[in-house]
């Protein structure tokens, strides 16, 4: 008798279930045990004692988005590289190591181009990006 | 002979590589990489020459062909077959065509390196030129309509870019757009035809289409009330019409001369416009099956004659040449239509040589004197002797003077047309085809010699009024145009040698195998009639039993199994069929007639422009001349009537409807509807007339408008809705 191959997924589901159960268990435990004396002042967002002004949901700097952008591209590229990396040794043993290397390196070279571009354009600088672009234009 | 893909692919790939390198790194290369383009085309030429040698001089049987396919994608599952193969298909015709395209393109590239020197668009020009050539070569190599269509569209794009290369000039931009849009009209139909073929036989490969025709798969299928074969044939021919600039869709070609002259040479001679003829020839069995050859012939005749008449009054060298191209394309189509398959293809080849040469010569003139208006030229013969020589050869060829190639090919077409129109028992109305054809031939001789006389003979006007005119308004050259000391032309391998090489091939015996051409006996023996031996309409039967060769295979068929067919000139026309004799007669008559007509045309031109004993056309027939100068008002018709009156009118009407009617009666949208309905119900008892007469109309108009406004919303989300709805209705109606 052999277990079916999908059993490997069971721990994942169980762990997720445990996490959710733990969360709600802890929540209800705290509902039962913890005191509850709500007041307006208590539920004011903490700003070191100052009265909060306005909502925190305001516009943020677009640099956060640029970082996310670079990340997602690299993320996807590394995802595509994973299966190739996984069979790299196999290909090498089959005598196709050079071919695999060329494929792999040409893929990575585009990745490097991406990071080089962003580096050059100052997207990787957190603070200086304004000054750099300013300098370049003037 | 062993053929692998490796020995064929460079034909197509070398220019593509040049294109890629030039597109990305061209600016960094010396001379913008033009040498790379020339080199790549030369590589193509070498490989093509090898194929040509094998097919023409080698041991291959006449109907030998190379057909290699690979599976592009295969989405079939179960009983649903959805599988597309791509591949290459080379037969005699393709071998000849490949050599012609690569050879002429090579010479044009070489010439362009001289012509485009110091031009602001030098780099961009040499990006698109190799791509253009490679697309044409790929089109010739294609074994199916789909990949052919891809290259077709690449060519469309390239011609768009080349015509509009001086994009800072509004006229060039307009011309390029015009070329692009006009050919699109044909392409839509071509696509439709391809889809229709796909629906019937599940493939668009040439050989599959041929074998389907042989097996009668098209028989009995009807669409839109006409036979399926007719439908597809018309669709495909409309595509060819767009590309080959046939009569109603011809308007783009004359404007295509806005680009640099070598680009025009490529468009007019080797690549773009011949693609349509090529397609018609490839799909010839379908045209025959669909019984639309008479239509092709008539279209061709109209184009041939109409364009020739317009060319008579043009004053721009390139315009004359452009209209002459149109006219010659018309002859090719006549050839296809009257069943003169061989001669039509031969005319493609011969025309390519002399038209390329003509355009390059015109380019040489323009580059030398910076002027292309013929009335301002004259007497250039002593300054540009080589150009004059090559241009004269080509003019003799295009005019159909014996011993030159144009005579051979055109008069074969005309002979067949004569037979077709008068002797084959067709509808007598079709006699218009040979009549227009011969008339056009005479006009051709006339306007070509008019061009020659005005340009090279007479007195040179350039010296006298240097400052009276501005630049030639075509090519923006780097240097100033006013210093019109016309330099004496020297022999230069980039500027004149290509012309002279091309001029050599305007002689008829290269193609006909004898000096005089057909109709006057075979002086040097019929065995040299290689063109007639090699090129024949596809025999669809032989494609029924065929095996695909995989793409990577070495071509291993026994090539010497079948003997090369022999062409017997005498027995060819004296067979058991009594019509053969008539055909022979028609050819002799036709040849004689056309010689007479051609010389007549030359004579009139001579009298009119050298001796000046006949008044020029404009003073004799001012009305006709004006009409011709306006190009039969086609542009006016398309722009002013179809677009401005039709489309804009509709637009204006809708706008009026929107603003005037809708806004007046229903400013508040749905609210008004409600209010009006409410009022109507409230006042129904006492003010019936009022309610119906005023508000009721408003409601009706409002509702109607609501529908109209939906269709004009411009909201992307509404288009999603329409997309889904149309898709759904399509599926439900077709009951898939």
């Amino acid at each position, binding site marked *: 008798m052999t277990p079916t191959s999908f059993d490997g997924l069971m721990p994942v589901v169980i762990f997720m279930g445990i996490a959710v159960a733990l969360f709600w268990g802890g929540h209800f435990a705290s509902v039962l045990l913890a005191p509850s004396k709500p007041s307006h002042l208590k539920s004011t967002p903490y700003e070191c004692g100052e009265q909060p002004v306005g909502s925190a949901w305001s516009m943020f700097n*677009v640099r956060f988005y640029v970082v996310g952008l670079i990340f997602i591209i690299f993320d*996807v590229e590394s995802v595509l590289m994973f299966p190739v990396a996984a069979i790299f040794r196999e290909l090498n043993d089959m005598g196709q190591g050079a071919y695999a290397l060329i494929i792999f390196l040409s893929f990575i070279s585009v990745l490097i181009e991406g990071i080089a571009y962003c580096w050059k354009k100052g997207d990787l600088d957190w603070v200086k990006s304004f000054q750099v672009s300013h300098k370049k234009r003037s | 002979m062993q053929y692998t893909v490796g020995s064929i692919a460079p034909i197509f790939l070398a220019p593509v590589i040049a294109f890629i390198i030039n597109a990305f790194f061209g600016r960094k290369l010396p001379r913008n990489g033009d040498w790379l383009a020339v080199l790549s085309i030369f590589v193509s030429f070498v490989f093509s020459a090898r194929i040509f040698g094998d097919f023409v001089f080698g041991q291959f049987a006449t109907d030998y062909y190379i057909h290699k396919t690979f599976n592009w994608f295969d989405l079939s599952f179960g009983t649903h077959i959805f599988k597309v193969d791509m591949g290459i298909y080379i037969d005699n015709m393709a071998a000849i065509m490949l050599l012609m395209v690569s050879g002429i393109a090579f010479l044009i590239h070489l010439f362009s390196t001289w012509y485009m020197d110091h031009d602001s668009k030098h780099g961009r020009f040499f990006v698109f030129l190799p791509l253009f050539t490679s697309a044409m070569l790929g089109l010739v190599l294609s074994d199916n309509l789909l990949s052919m269509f891809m290259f077709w569209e690449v060519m469309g794009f390239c011609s768009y870019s080349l015509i509009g290369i001086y994009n800072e000039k509004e006229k060039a931009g307009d011309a390029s757009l015009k070329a692009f849009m006009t050919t699109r009209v044909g392409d839509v139909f071509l696509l439709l035809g391809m889809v229709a073929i796909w629906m019937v036989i599940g493939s668009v490969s040439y050989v599959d289409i041929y074998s389907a025709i042989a097996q009668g798969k098209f028989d009995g299928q009807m669409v839109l009330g006409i036979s399926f074969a007719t439908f597809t044939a018309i669709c495909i021919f409309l595509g060819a019409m767009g590309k080959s600039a046939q009569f109603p869709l011809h308007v783009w070609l004359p404007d295509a001369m806005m680009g640099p002259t070598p680009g025009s040479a490529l468009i007019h001679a080797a690549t773009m416009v011949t693609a349509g003829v090529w397609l018609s020839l490839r799909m010839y069995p379908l045209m025959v099956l669909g019984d639309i050859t008479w239509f092709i012939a008539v279209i061709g005749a109209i184009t041939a004659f109409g364009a020739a008449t317009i060319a008579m009054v043009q004053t721009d060298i390139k315009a004359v040449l452009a209209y002459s191209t149109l006219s010659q394309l018309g002859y090719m189509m006549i050839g296809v239509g009257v069943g003169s398959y061989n001669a039509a293809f031969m005319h493609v080849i011969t025309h390519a040589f002399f038209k390329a040469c003509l355009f390059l010569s015109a380019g040489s003139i323009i580059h030398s004197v910076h002027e292309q208006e013929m009335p301002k030229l004259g007497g250039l013969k002593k300054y540009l002797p080589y150009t004059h020589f090559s241009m004269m050869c080509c003019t003799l060829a295009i005019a159909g003077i014996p011993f030159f190639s144009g005579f051979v090919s055109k008069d074969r077409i005309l002979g067949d047309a004569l037979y077709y129109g008068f002797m084959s028992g067709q509808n007598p109305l079709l006699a218009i085809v040979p009549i227009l054809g011969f008339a056009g031939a005479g006009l051709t001789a006339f306007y070509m010699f008019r061009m020659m006389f005005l340009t090279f003979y007479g007195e040179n006007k350039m010296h006298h009024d240097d400052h009276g005119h501005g630049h030639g308004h075509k090519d923006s050259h780097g240097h100033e145009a006013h210093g019109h000391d016309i330099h004496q032309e020297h022999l230069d391998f980039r500027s004149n040698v290509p012309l002279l090489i091309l001029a050599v091939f305007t002689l008829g015996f290269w193609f006909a195998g004898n000096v005089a051409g057909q109709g006057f006996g075979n002086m040097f023996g019929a065995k040299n009639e290689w063109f007639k031996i090699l090129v024949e309409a596809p025999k669809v039967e032989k494609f029924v039993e065929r095996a695909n060769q995989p793409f990577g295979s070495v071509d291993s068929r026994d090539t010497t199994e079948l003997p090369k067919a022999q062409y017997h000139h005498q027995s060819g026309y004296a067979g058991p069929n009594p019509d053969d004799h008539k055909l022979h007669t028609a050819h002799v008559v036709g040849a004689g007639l056309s010689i007479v007509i051609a010389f007549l045309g030359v004579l009139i031109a001579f009298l009119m422009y050298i001796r000046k004993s006949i008044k020029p056309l404009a003073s004799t027939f001012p009305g006709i001349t004006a009409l011709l100068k306006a190009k039969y008002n086609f542009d006016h018709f398309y722009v002013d009537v179809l677009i401005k009156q039709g489309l804009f009118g509709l637009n204006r009407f809708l706008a009026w409807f929107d603003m005037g009617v809708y806004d007046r009666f229903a400013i508040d949208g749905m609210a008004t509807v409600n209010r009006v309905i409410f009022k109507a119900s409230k006042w129904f008892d006492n003010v019936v007339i009022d309610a119906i007469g005023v508000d009721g109309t408003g409601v009706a108009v409002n509702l109607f408008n609501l529908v109209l406004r939906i269709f004009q919303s411009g909201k992307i989300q509404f288009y999603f809705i329409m997309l889904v709805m149309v898709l759904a209705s399509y599926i439900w109606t077709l009951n898939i």
Partner: protein
Amino acid sequence: MFLQVLFLLSATLTIGCGIAVAVTRNLMHSCVFLLGTLIGIAGLYATLGADFVAVTQIMVYVGGIVILMLFAVMLTGGKDFVSRAQNLLGLAPSMGNKWTFALSGLVGVVFILTNVKLLMSVASSLPTKEINNELPSTVNEIGHLLVKDHVLAFELSSVLLLGALVGAAIIARPRKQ
């Protein structure tokens, strides 16, 4: 048994969160529900034995696209905006109201009907394959496909991503006013 449970869980998560994506007004919540949908789809991939695709789904979507979308919502304020432009039929003041939802629901129903009709005709002719529960690793075969059959697409996808990176960086880069 476990497979069925996993399938039901994933399908419920997918469809439930999908509906929530469609009807939730708060854009931030929509994004979070999209996260649920994507995880559900990853679960569905897992039930199909596509382990690599499932994990890729989580990696790219959950780790990347959703975060990017959350950033974008944050950067655009995440508010409902009333358009000053004239709307279709004068309806739809902001992001979705009952009219647009009704209209899209209608379209959706039409689409479902059409597709069910198509499916019915195709399903009968679909060949059925032996389904085995013992699945070999998909990673190696995907790797082989990527470097052999689809190597051009593989290499081109890197160029595509480079293009997307450059294009998006140019568009989104903070500019000097």
